């Protein structure tokens, strides 16, 4: 069975986790049941031991509450000065995170993990400071009491009647590498309290005293011991899993906790967490949006957001589902995610409603199959008092007026029809009116329309007329049915409309995301990528945006992107920089640097952060819902991957260019050094022979000839090198209309000595049109081509120079009767520094490259091919663009 072997993927995940941990600091928690058990004392003692072992340890923050024994322990320890935060005339002492990061000790002591930082601090909570220390690789000793654990928060409140507001997520607790339970029997603690050894804040003395009742302390102690044991148990299980010790734990479970907008939902989440922890299961907290939830008040919506946030803090995955019926949606999702247990709250609906409409729990149980359903009670004595429901939506007066108007119109129509048709048809007219109202507005006006319809129908058309009194009681049935039908129709219509709206909204987002991904996939440059991303994000969110990308040295810089209008000052830039360094959200609406004016989202690619998006929503709370935030993050991730891809491509290209440049430089060096040295060696040799001896006249002449020829060769090489440099630096082509014949003539005249022993046939038709060209450059190209022929063909072989026009361009061909080109050389001869392997010729391989550069600068094409009857042919074209100039007729 696979259960008996360690799952390789799980092992890998653990290995990676441990790898990541190594770079991170270790967290040691001193955990206690209540204040006064001696956590700070134990922690400082541990610090002194470290110090005695020669470890670099610093006290970042320690609260001694003026107790002498504790203060004595601080003696001889390095203490980081606190950060002073001005607050209402006094200064609050806060832990100085930046100083600690700058100091970088091996170990740091930070007391009171659950502390809330003063406003204006980087993080809202001290545990966030600690996380940052750990990320920076600093080991942390810290202390916390059991009542501060988020998942136990409500239990503690129930036991002691005191609500603790400062909490830490359980994930922090679970993340700790070591937990030291500081335990003190309740009697001793009470004794210490009576001796005044436990610090209690003045204003809370009374409340705290009731907190320290013996019964409470016993319960808290038990909670602390149990939580520690759970944690130890989890460690043991992990150990056993790693070592493939046969099954002593259940198969992996997955728990789905379904929450509503009810205030009891938080408790449900905590209960879910306890269940999941006990089972060692993954857990998901899901919220189902139904058409009905469109009617929720703002307070209810906020509560859902808070519940989901709480769930995330407790380590759950959250999901917002949407569908017409809650139970169906939950079951579909549960099946898709292999959920084994579903936790729901006890139905809140009154009994009659449950009997009439059925309850979600019933529906779930009916359809659950092999999934277990846990129904957990929502506690009536919840410590959080239930705030008054804001039921009323803002009254929409025009919609109500419209409803009244439509009913009036129906009455008018019915009045006209009254004498011709039966009452049942008049009812139809009213129902039509109700449907009309329902399709146009929300529930309130529709209900009004329904009720009004029944009332006016009674008033005008049911005898006795113009009275609400009813003579025949059977009309009461008519009214009842009419009202129910009107209400049901209106309910259904409104629901359908809202569902359609929700669907359209989702559709719009999905479409935007899809459109963005598709456009990003087709874009290569970072600039355009950013513009596309910003444009698409703004389509979905109404906000102002800014894009920040790192410049050299990892400092973020504001990028100018069209439509990204958010201005970034230095304070905001610092927030963005923090986000970039920590790859976490920060700014507006988050618990880190919430004072910022915008929300900053890191752009995280596969190799790390590539930048930061700044988003300032038009409405301050737009990103409070996890769903919106996740959507924004999805956009950000897509953008980040695209940017990373573009950056990688640019890097790859730069590397390619660098390699190519390197290769060119190498061939240039080898080529140039060889080609410069050979003629120089020949000249030096010939000249020294002439100087030293007295060679015979014919030898003398031959040596002089050598000197002359080699000097010419050097001259050509230098000229080509200069020409190439000039062409590469972007030469200006000065085109004028020229006779090709004239340029050919100049070239042939100059090359006369070199071409002397080769029969040359030129065929440049007299009627060849004028060609727009830079005569100096074309002269150079022709010279190089002819010199190339001289170089690569044996003396005495014929050369042909031909030119012809096809109306749109002029083609020039230089054909030889030499050995021709080696296969594959046709294209490569024009490459820089390319020299055919088959030839033993000398030359820097620049001549033809220059030809190509010149021809291409003229908009022409150059190519080489072997002729069917032997030899090679080089051809180039020059386009005939524009109108040739008119020459003034010779008149006088």
């Amino acid at each position, binding site marked *: 069975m696979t259960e008996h072997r360690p799952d390789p993927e799980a092992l890998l995940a653990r290995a990676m986790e441990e790898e990541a941990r190594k770079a991170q600091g270790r967290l040691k928690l001193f955990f206690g049941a209540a204040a006064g058990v001696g956590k700070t004392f134990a922690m400082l003692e541990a610090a002194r031991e470290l110090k005695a072992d020669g470890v670099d340890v610093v006290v970042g923050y320690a609260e001694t509450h003026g107790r002498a024994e504790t203060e004595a322990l601080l003696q001889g320890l390095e203490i980081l000065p606190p950060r002073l935060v001005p607050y209402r005339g006094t200064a609050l002492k806060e832990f100085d995170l930046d100083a600690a990061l700058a100091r970088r000790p091996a170990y740091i002591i930070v007391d009171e993990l659950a502390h809330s930082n003063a406003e204006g601090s980087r993080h809202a909570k001290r545990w966030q400071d600690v996380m940052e220390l750990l990320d920076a690789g600093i080991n942390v000793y810290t202390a916390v009491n059991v009542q501060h654990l988020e998942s136990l928060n409500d239990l503690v409140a129930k036991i002691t009647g005191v609500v603790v507001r400062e909490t830490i997520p359980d994930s922090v607790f679970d993340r700790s590498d070591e937990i030291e339970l500081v335990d003190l029997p309740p009697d001793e603690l009470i004794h210490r309290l009576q001796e005044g050894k436990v610090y209690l804040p003045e204003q809370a003395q009374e409340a705290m005293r009731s907190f320290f009742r013996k019964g409470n302390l016993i319960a808290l102690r038990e909670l602390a011991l149990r939580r520690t044991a759970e944690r130890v148990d989890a460690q043991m299980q992990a150990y056993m899993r790693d070592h493939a010790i046969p099954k002593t734990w259940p198969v992996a479970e997955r728990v789905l906790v379904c929450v509503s907008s009810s205030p009891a939902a938080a408790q449900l989440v905590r209960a879910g967490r306890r269940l999941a922890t006990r089972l060692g299961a993954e857990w998901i907290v899901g919220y189902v949006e139904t058409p009905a939830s469109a009617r929720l008040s703002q307070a209810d919506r906020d509560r859902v957001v808070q519940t989901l946030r709480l769930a995330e803090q407790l380590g759950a995955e959250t999901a917002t589902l949407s569908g017409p019926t809650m139970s169906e949606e939950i079951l579909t999702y549960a099946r898709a995610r292999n959920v084994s247990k579903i936790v729901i709250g006890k139905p809140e609906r009154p009994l009659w409603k449950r009997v009439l409409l059925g309850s979600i729990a019933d529906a779930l149980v009916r359809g659950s199959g092999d999934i277990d359903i846990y129904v957990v009670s929502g506690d009536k004595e919840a410590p959080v008092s239930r705030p008054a429901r804001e039921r009323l939506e803002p009254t929409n007066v025009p919609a109500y007026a419209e409803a009244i108007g439509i009913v009036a119109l129906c009455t008018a129509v019915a009045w006209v029809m009254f004498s011709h048709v039966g009452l049942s048809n008049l009812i139809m007219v009213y129902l039509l009116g109700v449907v009309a109202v329902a399709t146009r507005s929300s529930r309130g006006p529709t209900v009004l329309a329904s009720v009004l319809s029944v009332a006016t129908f009674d008033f005008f058309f049911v005898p006795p007329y113009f009275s609400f009194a009813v003579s025949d009681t059977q009309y009461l049935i008519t009214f009842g049915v009419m009202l129910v039908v009107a209400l049901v129709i209106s309910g259904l219509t409104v629901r359908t409309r809202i569902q359609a709206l929700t669907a359209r909204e989702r559709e719009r987002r999905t479409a935007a995301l899809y459109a963005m991904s598709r456009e990003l996939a087709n874009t290569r440059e970072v600039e355009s990528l950013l513009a596309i991303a910003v444009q698409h994000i703004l389509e979905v969110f109404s906000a102002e945006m800014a894009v920040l990308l790192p410049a050299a040295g990892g400092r973020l810089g504001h990028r100018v992107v069209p439509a990204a209008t958010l201005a970034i000052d230095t304070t905001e830039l610092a927030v963005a920089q923090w986000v970039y360094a920590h790859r976490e959200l920060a700014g507006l609406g988050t618990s880190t640097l919430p004072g910022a004016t915008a929300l900053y989202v890191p752009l995280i690619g596969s190799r790390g952060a590539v930048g930061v998006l700044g988003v300032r929503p038009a409405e301050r709370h737009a990103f409070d819902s996890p769903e919106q935030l996740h959507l924004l993050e999805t956009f950000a991730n897509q953008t980040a991957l695209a940017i990373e891809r573009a950056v990688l491509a640019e890097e790859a290209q730069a590397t390619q260019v660098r390699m190519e440049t390197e290769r060119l430089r190498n061939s240039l060096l080898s080529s140039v050094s060889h080609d410069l040295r050979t003629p120089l060696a020949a000249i030096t040799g010939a000249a020294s022979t002439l100087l030293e001896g007295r060679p015979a006249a014919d030898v003398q002449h031959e040596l002089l000839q050598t000197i002359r020829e080699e000097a010419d060769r050097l001259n050509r090489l230098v000229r080509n090198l200069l020409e190439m440099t000039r062409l590469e630096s972007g030469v200006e082509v000065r085109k004028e209309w020229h006779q090709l014949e004239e340029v050919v*003539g100049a070239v042939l005249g100059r090359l006369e000595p070199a071409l002397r022993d080769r029969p040359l046939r030129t065929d440049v038709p007299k009627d060849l049109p004028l060609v727009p060209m830079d005569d100096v450059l074309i002269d150079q190209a022709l010279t190089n081509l002819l010199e190339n022929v001289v170089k690569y063909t044996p003396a005495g072989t014929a050369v042909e120079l031909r030119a012809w026009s096809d109306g749109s361009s002029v083609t020039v061909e230089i054909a030889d009767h030499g050995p021709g080109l080696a296969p594959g050389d046709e294209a490569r001869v024009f490459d820089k520094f390319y020299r055919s392997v088959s030839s033993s010729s000398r030359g820097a391989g620049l001549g033809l490259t220059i030809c190509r550069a010149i021809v291409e600068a003229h908009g022409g094409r150059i190519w080489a091919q072997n002729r069917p009857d032997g030899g090679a042919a080089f051809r180039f074209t020059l386009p005939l663009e524009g109108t040739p100039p008119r020459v003034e007729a010779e008149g006088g």
Partner: protein
Amino acid sequence: MADPEGKPETSSDQIPGPSVVLIEDEPQIRRFLRAALTGHGYRLFEAGSGEDGLIEAATRQPDLVILDLGLPDLDGLGVLARLREWTSVPVIVLSARGQERDKIAALDGGADDYVSKPFSVGELLARMRAALRRRDQVGEGAAATTFVVGDLSVDLARRHVLVGDKEIHLTPIEYKLLTTLIRHAGKVLTHRQLLKEVWGPAHTEDSQNLRFYVAQLRRKLETVPARPRYLLTEPGVGYRLVAES
């Protein structure tokens, strides 16, 4: 064996050879020119800088000046301009720059001819001879009435143009172009100079016209226009009528 073409025409056993001032800063170039020119009977005065060159030219009153365009102190074109303020002595410019623009500037600035570095001594001597001959003709006042080079002969008095035995008919502009070139035979004339002399000072930018008439003239005078023997093109600079075949 002495090269018969290597002797300047004016040299003889009795009369001292023409005097030449060489303004050139490179000692190596001066050294080989000294050997070559004195070997061909010229009296050579050397200057290593522009200022020295101007002094030499003023004191020696030479028959010819050879001027390097790349001088350390003064720009070669500047030296040329100052020379032209007081003398019409033929100036041959040595240009290492390979840029046609400099050559045109030098020619338009009054240089008689140019030689691009690197050059052969034969090439330089030929240009020097041509320059001295043109000066002598101007100096003598009476230009030769017949110009002959290879198969081409032009009777300037009777306006007859012959290629071999065949008489060639030229339009007035073609004839004027040809006579202008003959007057400066052996020397490069820039487009600007030719346009100014043939069409007048108002037409110095009409290069297109010039190219057209040169092509016409070449078709009438040359056997293979694509391999001209008499009317040569200096790409990007101008035209030259060969003075000696």
